């Protein structure tokens, strides 16, 4: 999402409107049944209604809160653990195979395990979201700390820098691009898992809301919920991207 070219920017907006138009066209011409796909105006009305009179606001807060808590926990663990592993050759040699095994596991695969251990509790949801969204940040951090230019390690040795000083002044800034990219991916995973956990454990949130709307064939409410989820993903991604651009200004200064 960079404003590289105003024409491209206008074009990308036009694409959004074209899709909305096709959606509207499909619903008014009766190409698909109203029970499955609502008119976009009805979906918008449902959205407004949900916020002004219904439960949409507390549900959104519930989902965003669940996502953010799990994501923050994952980011904290990922950065601290990743720094420790990335800084130590020995730790990497011992842990890399395990990490390579765990990484490709679909995050949702651990949900049954978490339910068995913790029941359908908020703690289960937090654990699943945190565990599932840990990997991009953890692996990014490990790579970022491990990939410090050897010459800079020598500079640090020549300056007799302490281990913590090296981690803080050289390791962390070097890992920053990987950490932030990992955290952005983690955020997406966290949103997905928050929704799945809500659906499975019926905790108040958008996941439950869209599941119930679908069961009741309330397609306007269903689409309003889905659009809201998309907006949450978009906004959180843009926010993190803005942080990235600020924090990594040195990369773009060439």
């Amino acid at each position, binding site marked *: 999402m960079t404003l590289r070219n105003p024409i491209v920017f206008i074009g990308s907006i036009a694409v959004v409107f074209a899709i909305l138009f096709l959606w509207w066209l499909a619903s008014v011409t009766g190409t698909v049944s109203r029970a499955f796909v609502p008119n976009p105006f009805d979906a918008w009305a449902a959205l407004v209604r949900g916020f002004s009179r219904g439960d949409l606001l507390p549900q959104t807060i519930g989902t965003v809160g669940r996502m953010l808590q799990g994501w923050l926990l994952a980011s904290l663990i990922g950065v601290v653990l990743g720094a420790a592993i990335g800084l130590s050759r020995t730790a990497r040699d011992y842990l890399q195979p395990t990490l390579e095994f765990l990484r490709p596991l679909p995050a949702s695969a651990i949900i049954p395990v978490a339910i068995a251990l913790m029941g359908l509790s908020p703690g289960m949801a937090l654990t699943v979201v945190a565990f599932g969204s840990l990997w991009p940040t953890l692996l990014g951090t490990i790579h970022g700390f491990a990939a410090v230019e050897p010459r*800079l390690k*020598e500079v640090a040795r*020549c*300056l*007799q820098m302490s281990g913590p000083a090296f981690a803080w002044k050289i390791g962390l800034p070097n890992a920053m691009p990987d950490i932030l990219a990992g955290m952005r991916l983690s955020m997406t995973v966290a949103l997905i898992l928050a929704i799945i956990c809500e659906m499975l454990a019926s905790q108040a949130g958008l996941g439950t809301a869209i599941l119930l709307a679908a069961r009741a064939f309330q397609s306007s409410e269903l689409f309003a919920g889905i659009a809201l989820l998309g907006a949450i993903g978009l906004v959180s991604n843009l926010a993190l991207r803005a942080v990235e651009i600020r924090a990594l200004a*040195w990369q773009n*200064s060439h």
Partner: protein
Amino acid sequence: MLARPPEPAIAFDAIRVDLGGKTILTDITLDVKPGEFICVMGPSGCGKTTLLRVVAGLVQASAGKLSLFGKPVQGPSRKVSVVFQDYGRALLPWRDAAGNVALALEAAGMPRAEQRPLIETLLAKVGLKDHAHKFPGQLSGGMQQRLQIARCLAQDPEILLMDEPFGALDAMTRQQLQDEVLALAAERNTTVFFVTHDLEEALYLGDRVVALLPNPGRLARIVDVPLARPRNQLATREHPDFLAMRRDLFDMMHETH
């Protein structure tokens, strides 16, 4: 009573270095006097960088003894600073010029308030006064190398090690930096151990030139360079003694090859 001669700044005593099961350097014995500008030259692969890294404490000698001002080398020390050839990799790309100089001061535990004026002085000294807030990526090669030199000066080193520091720079910048380094070293009476593969550069800069031969790396010649200081890019390089020494060393390097 006779005054005791000062301890040599760098004393190599029968140094041998083996790396990867191969002898890279052997039988290096040499005393470098405090304040001396010594140039080490020789063909590629003869072990110049390795010898410099031994002095820096980054590589351990396999045999022999190395002392700096009478003290055996245990490892890297802030009293010894290294200017690497690949300046682009030796700087922190995420810190601006001032921040890169600050790294050395932070390592020495200097309070932040005292760092500021010193950073300004150092950057001015290497001609980067107006570039304090630029990142390395925004500086030319010559400016980046100047920045690395400023960081090394910030260590206030007793010994300055330079490994082909100007090898990647164009001829003009190279000559400018040669003169700047000569002036800086003279000003602080720093001992400089300067590695180059360029015979003329070695003669232009050095009080003495050490020529190495390869396979394994060993001392071939140690030549005194009694040319007047301050040196001058034109006058010094045209001086008959300079030309004679150049010819002499040139022939020597080519005969034994």
